[in-house]
């Protein structure tokens, strides 16, 4: 089946490894708030908005910033997208159906969790939950899709 919006199958392994590594780094940074300042990679970057906590807000100008966390987040997003949307070895309409089903399922799951957070989580913890929700959509999709594909690939032969 011809699909123009999927990445080649050969990208799947490498992007998967990168996704797990950057994901682990992000989870580690939740427990150690200094995680991303252990490596210094300061650069002048263009900031559309940098409200600052103790400093005055800055808009549309150059600021000094440690870009390690930006790099990790970008790598996590890019590798996650490629891993999620790369072709299977044998790409056909059944894998396309599993992909679509999983995408719908992941969207529902993510919003159910988000709504539970709206009800039960407050103040700063809620902001953190919102940040989580941005990435869990992709994570939910990846888990559910690969589980279904695994089960499908190991479905029994009736011969």
């Amino acid at each position, binding site marked *: 089946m011809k699909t123009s919006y999927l990445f080649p199958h050969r990208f799947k392994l490498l992007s998967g490894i990168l996704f797990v590594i950057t994901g682990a780094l992000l989870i580690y940074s939740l427990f150690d708030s200094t995680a991303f300042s252990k490596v210094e990679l300061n650069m002048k970057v263009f900031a559309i908005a940098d409200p600052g906590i103790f400093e005055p807000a800055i808009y549309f100008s150059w600021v000094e910033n440690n870009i390690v966390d930006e790099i990790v987040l970008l790598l996590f997003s890019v590798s996650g997208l490629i891993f999620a949307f790369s072709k*299977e070895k044998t790409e*056909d309409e*059944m*894998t396309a159906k599993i992909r679509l089903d999983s995408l719908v399922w992941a969207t529902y799951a993510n919003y159910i969790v988000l709504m539970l957070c709206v009800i039960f989580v407050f103040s700063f913890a809620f902001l953190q939950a919102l940040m989580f929700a941005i990435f869990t959509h992709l994570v939910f999709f990846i888990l559910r899709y690969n589980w279904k594909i695994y089960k499908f690939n190991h479905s*029994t032969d*009736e011969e």
Partner: protein
Amino acid sequence: MKNRLKIERAIANLTQGELAEKIGVSRQTINAIEAGKFVPSTVLALKLSRLFSKSVNEIFDLEEGD
């Protein structure tokens, strides 16, 4: 939807894997179609029809509730 894919495949003396390769899908997809778990697209149905030299209606049939 009912289908006679398994019977047609037996008549043509093909394994699921061989049939899958001929029409460009995975073996598991053929398995899912035969088990009635997956309804193939028109394109796939026509490919199967051409392969077995039978009309689509002879391989696939609607059932009550479709």
